């Protein structure tokens, strides 16, 4: 890490602190009075059921649940460039959860990022998206959460660097970046498209990962869904050309979102796995609407890989040559591929016949960064207890860093006609720091 980003961050911090103090004076929010935890009978069954679907579409459980922990009881650490934010307990426990939150208090947290007590929440909670959600949907999510099993579990303190640990700064952040307004349908478009647009923008907060963020962690305006990152993973663009060699159709997107695997592109991995698992539980029409909307954002299909003929035939550009590495005198990536990968990814391997995409089509192999490919090699796609889905073994223990680097370079050269990755070694180190836990 060079000095420059830190200096920029320092100057930014000073500017932001000043602005935030002024903003805080303007934007200060009082506590909202606690209520007696409402009984289940206070909520219409239809609201609870609708809220369950919206909570799944909004991935609430993904962040607000620790691995193997009680649902919605919080505690999961979400890594950000500013440190780790721990998701809070959103079960209706009166002392440690949101049991004493009224609907107005919940609405304010969802839309303005201010909790019941008047404290600013970090925009890791995607309130810049939820602010566009309808009144009825927020009430439904509230009804769903307030009827979960209460879990007594104290929130874990965040682990953020100065000055980002000062919550009042967020009042300034909100003035700069929070844009209000309930979402309005586009009358020219179909109801399905509008439903998808609403779910993507207001509930599903796809942009939280798939939009690039500025140096203060806000989604860049004018670059909506242009590709971003999620917990160290590369999140491909949805609104501009994704690295796929074949364009996505709405049908393929729906299959991918619902099952975590699409034969023409690849398997969901990293943080996207949890998203697809949630989407497996919601009404099919909603996933279809998401797919229709996202497909409409993507550039119209170019002829299949016309600009990239070499990539169409796996094995056509086969480097095969052994390369030197600092770790071992000679690494033979072709032998590694044939022995470690070929049983599933080789031509005519039983797995490819059963539906695993060819690496020629893999978004991870075609991405502009090696991050997803090396994370997949290191950690694979683990078994998910109680869920069906694609599986890939982890190679973190079997292969050395040098062998993984050589293998990644080999995959890129053999299965695409794209330039070599510039960041293979760095991607390996970063993936190892991040771990394979998602």
């Amino acid at each position, binding site marked *: 890490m060079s000095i420059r980003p830190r200096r920029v961050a320092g100057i930014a911090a000073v500017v932001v602190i000043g602005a935030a103090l002024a903003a805080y004076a303007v934007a200060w929010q009082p506590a909202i009075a606690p209520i007696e935890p409402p009984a289940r009978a206070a909520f219409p069954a239809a609201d609870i059921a609708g809220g369950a679907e919206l909570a799944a579409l909004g991935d609430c459980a993904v962040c607000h649940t620790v691995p*193997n922990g009680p649902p919605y009881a919080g505690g999961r650490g979400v890594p950000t460039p500013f440190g780790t934010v721990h998701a809070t307990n959103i079960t209706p426990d009166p002392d440690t959860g949101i049991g004493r939150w009224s609907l107005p208090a919940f609405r304010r947290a969802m839309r303005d990022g201010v909790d019941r007590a008047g404290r600013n929440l970090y925009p890791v909670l995607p309130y810049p998206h939820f602010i566009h959600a309808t009144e009825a949907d927020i009430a439904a999510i509230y009804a769903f959460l307030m009827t979960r099993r209460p879990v007594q579990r104290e929130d874990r303190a965040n682990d953020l660097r100065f000055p980002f640990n000062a919550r009042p700064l967020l009042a300034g952040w909100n003035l700069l970046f929070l844009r209000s307004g309930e979402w309005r349908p586009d009358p020219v478009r179909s109801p399905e498209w509008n439903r998808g647009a609403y779910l993507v923008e207001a509930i599903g907060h796809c942009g939280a990962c798939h939009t690039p963020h500025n140096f203060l962690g806000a989604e860049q305006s004018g670059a909506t869904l242009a590709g971003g990152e999620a917990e160290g993973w590369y999140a491909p663009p949805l609104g501009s050309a994704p690295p796929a060699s074949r364009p996505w159709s709405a049908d393929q997107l729906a299959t991918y979102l619902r099952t975590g695997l699409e034969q023409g592109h690849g398997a969901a991995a990293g943080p996207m796995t949890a998203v697809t698992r949630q989407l497996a539980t919601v009404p099919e029409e909603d996933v279809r609407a998401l797919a229709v909307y996202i497909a409409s954002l993507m550039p119209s299909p170019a002829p299949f890989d016309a600009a990239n003929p070499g990539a169409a035939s796996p094995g056509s550009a086969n480097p095969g040559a052994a390369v030197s590495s600092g770790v*071992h*005198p000679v*690494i*033979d990536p*072709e*032998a*590694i591929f*044939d*022995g*470690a990968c*070929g*049983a*599933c990814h080789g031509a005519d391997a*039983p*797995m490819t016949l059963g539906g695993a995409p060819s690496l020629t089509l893999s978004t991870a192999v075609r991405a502009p960064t090696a991050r997803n490919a090396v994370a997949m090699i290191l950690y694979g796609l*683990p*078994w998910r*207890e109680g869920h069906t889905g694609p*599986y*890939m*073994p*982890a*190679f*973190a*223990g*079997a*292969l*050395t860093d040098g*062998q993984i680097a050589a293998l990644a370079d080999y995959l890129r050269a053999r299965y695409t006609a794209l330039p070599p990755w510039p960041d293979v070694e760095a991607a390996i180190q970063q993936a190892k720091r991040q771990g394979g836990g998602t």
Partner: protein
Amino acid sequence: MMKLTVNGREHAVDAEPDTPLLYVLRDDLGLNGAKFGCGLGQCGACTVIVDGEAVFSCLTPIATLAGRAVTTIEGLGSAQAPGPVQRAFIEEQAAQCGYCIAGMVMRAQALLTRTARPSEQQIRDAMNPNLCRCGTQMRILAAVRRAAGMVPEKAAAR
């Protein structure tokens, strides 16, 4: 010819560089503890330890093993003098058909070498990649707990 270090002994092996370690262990070195199950890294019957980490030997080409130390179940002890993890598996009678057990023992060994006193969750997470189709997982978990020195009564009261 390529040199492989298995259970502390160096072997000269005449095999193609992409040959899976499992085939070399069984066919060339006569070490039959590791089993062929799926050949795809899905079952764990072939698990051995390389440089302290549990790996699927069916997906580990020997080209990756220069200068690295391989340990198989034969390296942990023998039928006459089983090692501590092997003894725990015997005492808990963790095997039904036994086909998965060598892999289970090796995965448990890698965990306990790294983490001498694992939590229940750490044990379950570590053992997750290995399958037992007879359904003896509860006994396997009990054996790992025993090997870790966890009190069996406490485990049984879960």
